[in-house]
């Protein structure tokens, strides 16, 4: 069950503030890193929503991210629609795909659920890859960015774009946290804890899971919309299952089922990647060892481990 604890608030605020500072003080390259972290953080929050609070570990969040990006790209670059319409269509497309996958896979459990989401994600990848209308493996370019000049924001400025992405991370986190505390979210935690019992109490669990998956997909779609605007280019690579795998790693490193942890996890992974990448091209080796160590150490993730220590200390104090 989700509680917006002070530790969560502090962690999110601290990570976002540090990244904002990094973007403001750094040059072009740090801002690119901040944008990369922000996109991954939104995806990680969306995955943690279903995986950590609904027990649905998805390997198709990369594909949903790509669907959001492609829908936005297609609407602006091919359809010539304005960015607001494109945003709504992209969010709807991601949510609809998520609703479909969630509904079909809702009764599949464990490793089989992961395989099912992999299958649907890869199907989307192949369809996009083979679709001539969407540019096939060449991708699409000429994508518009939001025009926020009316409120004094220049989205073509790398710093302002980076800060805008960070703002979306906060919005995504707040939306997920809000829903998790709502009637819907509490019911979802009930399913995660004991689906059988929830059904015996009268809940149509598969429908609830499908809606949860759809909401999470909408958040992933939002990350896709930003990704399309960031490079103003989309390619099928966005949809490959390894993207989903990377998001899953972020969630695990940060702390599955903590919502705040995955944001820290995204920052950690991307910074590790670039810092290690500066010395050696074999940064995957380090990330891999890190992942193995994190899971073997109990699988709580960095944030989850801190939360666990604090709770144990609080428990000891209460006993004493």
């Amino acid at each position: 069950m989700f509680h917006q604890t002070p530790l969560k608030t502090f962690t999110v605020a601290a990570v976002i503030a540090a990244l904002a500072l990094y973007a403001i003080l750094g040059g072009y390259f740090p801002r690119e890193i901040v944008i990369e972290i922000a996109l991954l953080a939104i995806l990680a929050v969306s995955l943690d929503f279903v995986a950590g609070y609904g027990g649905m570990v998805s390997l198709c969040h990369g594909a949903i991210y790509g669907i959001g990006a492609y829908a936005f790209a297609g609407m602006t670059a091919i359809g010539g629609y304005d960015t607001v319409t494109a945003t709504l269509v992209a969010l709807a497309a991601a949510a609809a795909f998520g609703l479909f996958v969630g509904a079909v896979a809702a009764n599949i459990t464990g490793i089989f659920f992961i395989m099912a989401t992999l299958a649907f994600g890869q199907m989307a990848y192949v369809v996009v890859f083979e679709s001539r209308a969407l540019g096939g493996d060449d991708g699409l370019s000429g994508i518009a960015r939001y025009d926020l000049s009316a409120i004094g924001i220049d989205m073509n400025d790398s710093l302002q774009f980076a800060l805008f992405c960070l703002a979306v991370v906060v919005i995504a986190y707040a939306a997920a946290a809000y829903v998790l505390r709502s009637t819907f979210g509490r019911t979802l935690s009930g399913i995660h804890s004991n689906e059988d019992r929830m059904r015996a109490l009268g809940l149509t669990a598969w429908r609830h899971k499908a809606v949860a998956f759809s909401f999470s997909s909408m958040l992933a779609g939002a990350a896709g919309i930003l990704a399309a605007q960031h490079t103003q280019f989309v390619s099928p690579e966005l949809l490959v299952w390894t993207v989903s795998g990377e998001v899953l790693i972020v969630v695990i490193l940060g702390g599955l089922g903590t919502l705040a942890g995955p944001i820290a996890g995204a920052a950690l992974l991307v910074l590790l990647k670039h810092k290690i990448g500066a010395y050696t091209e074999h940064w995957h080796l380090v990330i891999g060892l890190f992942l193995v160590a994190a899971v073997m150490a109990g699988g709580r993730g960095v944030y989850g481990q801190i939360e666990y220590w604090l709770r144990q200390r609080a428990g000891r104090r209460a006993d004493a």
Partner: protein
Amino acid sequence: MVADVDFWLTQFLNGLQLSMLLFLLSIGLTIIFGLMHFVNLAHGALYMVGAYAGVSAAAALGNFWAALLIAPIAVMLVGIFLYAAIIRHMRRAGPMNQVLVTFGLIFVIVDLVRIVWGDIALGMAQPAILSGPAEFLGVVYPAYRLFIIAVGLIVMAALSLVLSRTQIGAMVRAGVENDAMAACLGINVERLFFAVFCVGCALAGLAGAIAAPVFSATPSMATDILIPTLIVVVIGGLGSLRGAIAGSLIVGFIQTFGAVVMPEFASVLVYVLLAAVLIVKPAGLLPARS
């Protein structure tokens, strides 16, 4: 018309050859999975190690057959190391953690291979005796590819015999069916798992080594082969030899014939099949447990 028949027969052999490689990989994965509910995503990485070990052994010894013997042993040793260092401790950790640990291992193994062997594709010479074309049912087909099919069929037959006729086979079947019961019957499940794990690793190494002369050894083979292998295992049904055979044939033939008949959507067909099986028969087509 004759040309047509030849064409389809060639495709049939291509499909069979792919199926056999998938079988060599999926059988180890599925039995480990079925016996101990252990999800080893690093199985594809072991296949890659097998290919590189084969390439190096063949280059060093100048003998293909020696390489074919050394590669499985080398991969088995890697497997034993992984077992002792990691897998043994993750036995009771639940499928999610196993997926994640072995997912991490893929990164580690792939990067280690890139450090040792570099990023370029490494070829491996076919043995002289198998390097030419051969005739099969009137079709001219590379002899080496027929050899791959033969190896697959031999392993398939040998495993069938071992599983159905020997005491070890009976123990494995009992373990897959009900490991708690098997343990009660005095079977040392832990040792059995270790033995099966070693055989699974060796077969992955063998698959890598015999694939190297055709596809070359590349770092990307670890993940390229992983997904089709997992699909075979899930479609066929966990822990089941018959399931692995059926799954390999289905996936191998769908990929091969799909690429010929509807090249644009060949790769999507397998995923459609996977999704359909998961929805209609979540336990797979031929599950080991009824």
